[in-house]
Every structure is written in C-alpha cells, then in structure tokens.
C-alpha cells in the first residue's frame, strides 16, 4: 500500500513538473488536431479542462434497492495540460425490502489531479493520467466507510486518418480508460477494484466539416451518438473475481457553452441486475462561458501567426 501510494505521488509530481515546464498554446478544450472529443457521461475523459457538471444524475434499480443520485463536479486547469477537480453527489437509496430504512445524504466528495501528457493532432490521439482521492467526509449512510486512492490512464483515438476508401468511418472515435482503486486504511473491508471503460462515438460535426457536408441542420449537426461500456472487477476482498458490467447507449449534444448527454444504463451480466436505468448530465464549458476567468493559470504560450502568413 505504501509502495502504491509512493508510485502515485511520483507520477503526480512528474506530471506537474512536465506540465509546468512546457508553455503551450491554448487549444480549445477536448481537441486533438481537428477531432473534438466531447465529455463522456460515465467515463472520465483524458483532457484537463475548465468545465463543470451541473448536474449529472443516475437512476437504477439494483438487486436490492432503487438508487437515485445527483452529482456536481468542477474541473479547473492549472496549465493547458494539468488540472484539478472536485466532485460530489447527493444520493437517495430506497431498499426493496420494506423493512429496511431509506438512506439519503451527501456522498463523500472526491478530489483528483489530471494530466494530459500526450496529444497527437494528425493522428487524433490523446492520453491522460488521473490520480484521485475519495474521502470520508460525506453522510455515512450513503458513503464508503473508508477513503480510497484511484489511478487511471485514459486515451482517445479518432479514426480521421483511416484509408480514404473508408470515408464513413472517419467520424468514429474510440475512448478508453483503465483504473485501479484501492481502499485506504487497515480496517477497510472492501478490496481493490479494477475500473474499465470503453466509448464508441460517431461525430456528426466531424462528418459535416471534414468528410462530407450532407446538409444536417443545426442543432442536429452537433449530436454525437455514442455507446459506453463499464466494467468493475473486484481484484481482492470477499467479492474477488466478481465483475459488474453495463452498457450505456445514448448520445451527447455539444454546443456553444454547454453539453447535454443522456444514456440508458443496461446490465451486461448477472451481477449488474435485470433492470435498465438512466444516466445524464448538463455539462458547462466554463472557459467558453467566461474566458477571462476560466483559463490555464500557468504555462500559456501566445498564438503564433498562422501557416504561411
């Protein structure tokens, strides 16, 4: 545990040093080359950003309860590629067993540092690393009993450079993430969890702007049909070997200042239950709403005169 924590601290320090040492132009958030990656609803994307979820929500009926939660998350960039975030939720849990009491309250907030060390424009590729700390500051009846430390590596890859014989494939983007979450504390009963995510997305604005203008009107041209997958696997503890898997078909719409998203939450295996839930969000692009306030604090290089001018 101490070795894991030390490795993660070193990763964060290296990220901070690397990010602060590189002055970079202020790219619009979520871009790798000409590819815009909107914020997924379930997966944490690879980009450091000045953005806010206000709110996100989820509802699902599990084996033993109905669960509804509302979340808020604020992300702030320190440099163009390094940012911090804080997020919290308010949860309502209604057990299916009528003899059991309902539980409501604020879930323990989570703090995170995110670093985007690699963006390749021509190949529409981005890689991000995040370290997060789950606290025990929330209401105990809806929160974990112990703190947790999480590390995640994520990527995004647009298919804009596929052979020209496959033009309709170019608007496709794939994102993925792999993370480990460890409970902190000698008395923590739960084990280590492996979190895995995959996002498959089709960008209509990419189709219109870079492949073929098929005449889609606004706001339809700003829709991103997508499907997300999540897999939570217990690596230790009493539930070792158990994986809970969901698929989330839906869409996001990204506009001038906001993004909205809505997806169904559908079980993929027995551990995920039998019922379909729903997740959604209203996401704010703070750097576009208030650019004089929300921008990287350090390491911003001025724009250069454009090619050939």
């Amino acid at each position, binding site marked *: 545990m101490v070795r894991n924590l030390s490795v993660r601290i070193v990763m964060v320090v290296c990220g901070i040093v690397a990010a602060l040492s590189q002055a970079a132009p202020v790219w619009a958030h979520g871009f790798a080359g*000409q590819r815009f990656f909107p914020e997924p609803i379930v997966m944490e994307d690879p980009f450091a950003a000045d953005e806010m979820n206000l709110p996100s929500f989820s509802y699902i009926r599990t084996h033993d309860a109905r669960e509804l939660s509302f979340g808020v998350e604020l992300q702030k960039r320190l440099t163009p590629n390094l940012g911090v975030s804080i997020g919290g939720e308010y949860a309502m849990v209604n057990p299916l067993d009528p003899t059991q009491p309902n539980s409501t309250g604020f879930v323990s907030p989570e703090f995170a540092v995110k670093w985007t060390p690699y963006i390749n424009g021509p190949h529409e590729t981005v890689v991000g690393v995040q370290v997060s700390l789950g606290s025990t500051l929330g209401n105990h009846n809806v929160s974990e009993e112990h703190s947790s430390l999480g590390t995640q590596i994520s990527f995004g890859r647009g298919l804009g450079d596929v052979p020209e014989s496959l033009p309709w494939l170019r608007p496709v983007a794939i994102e993925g993430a792999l993370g480990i979450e460890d409970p902190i504390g000698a008395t923590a009963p739960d084990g280590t969890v492996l979190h895995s995510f995959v996002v498959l997305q089709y960008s209509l604005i990419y189709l219109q702007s870079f492949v073929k203008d098929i005449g889609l009107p606004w706001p339809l041209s700003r829709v991103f049909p997508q499907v997300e997958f999540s897999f939570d696997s217990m690596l230790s503890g009493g539930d070792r070997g158990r994986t809970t898997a969901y698929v989330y078909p839906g869409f996001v719409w990204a506009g001038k200042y906001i993004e909205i998203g809505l997806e169904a939450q559908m079980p993929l295996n027995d551990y995920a239950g039998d019922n379909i839930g729903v997740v959604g969000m209203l996401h704010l692009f703070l750097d576009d709403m208030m650019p004089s306030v929300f921008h990287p604090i350090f390491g911003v290089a001025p724009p250069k005169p454009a090619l050939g001018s």
Partner: protein
Amino acid sequence: MFDKVRRLTVRSLLLVLGTGVTLIASTGPAWPHAFPDHSDPRVGSEVQSAPKMVRIWFDGRLEPLFSAIHVMNQQGQRVDTGPSGVDPGDATLLTTEVPPLPPGVYTVVWDVVAVDGHRTEGRFDFTIKGGP
C-alpha cells in the same frame, strides 16, 4: 417512497433536458472556438467547373493575424494564389483565390484562432470533375 423517487427522477430528467434545450435555443449554433459552418465548395463535394475562390464560413469571429487557409493538390503542392485570409467585411469568413484548376481532388487546409483565443484546425477535400 418509490413513487417519490420515480417522480423525482422524471422531474430531474425533464429539468436537465429543459435547461439544456433552453440554453441551446438561446445560444445559437456558434461555437466560441470557431468551427466551420459551411463552405464553398462544400465539404466532400464534386463540382463540375473549377471555382474562382474557396470560402469557409465559421460559426465564430476569427483573429485575422492568426487565421489562414490554403488549397493543396494531390501532390501536396499549394495551388491557391491569394490573397487569402479573413474577409475584412465579415470576420467569420475565411477565403482564398485559386487559379483555373484542372480536374482532380483538392484539399483545403485551414488553421484559425477565434476571438476568444482558442485555436482550431482542419482540412477537407473537394473534387473538380470538369475543366476550368
């Protein structure tokens, strides 16, 4: 309790969607970080005769000093002859002039900075079927 939860869920969904629709309708199609709205020739189009100009209309105003457009042939050679840049009368319009071009596939390359300082870039192809 469950009915309350279900009502709250539905109301929450409606609130988020309603807020989103309101914000969408009130802000219009423009992106602060400028993105192409439409172009002439259109993205991925086939035109019968060679155009005299290539134009891209963006959904936000551009910074002239940091915005540019080029046209390349299939050999990767630049074929636009200028003047090129942001139109003085319309800060959302990026243009360049081209000479009479032979049939073939051409690539328009653009690189812009919007007035909010955000940079975006892109490229698209169009095809000339007939002669100049």
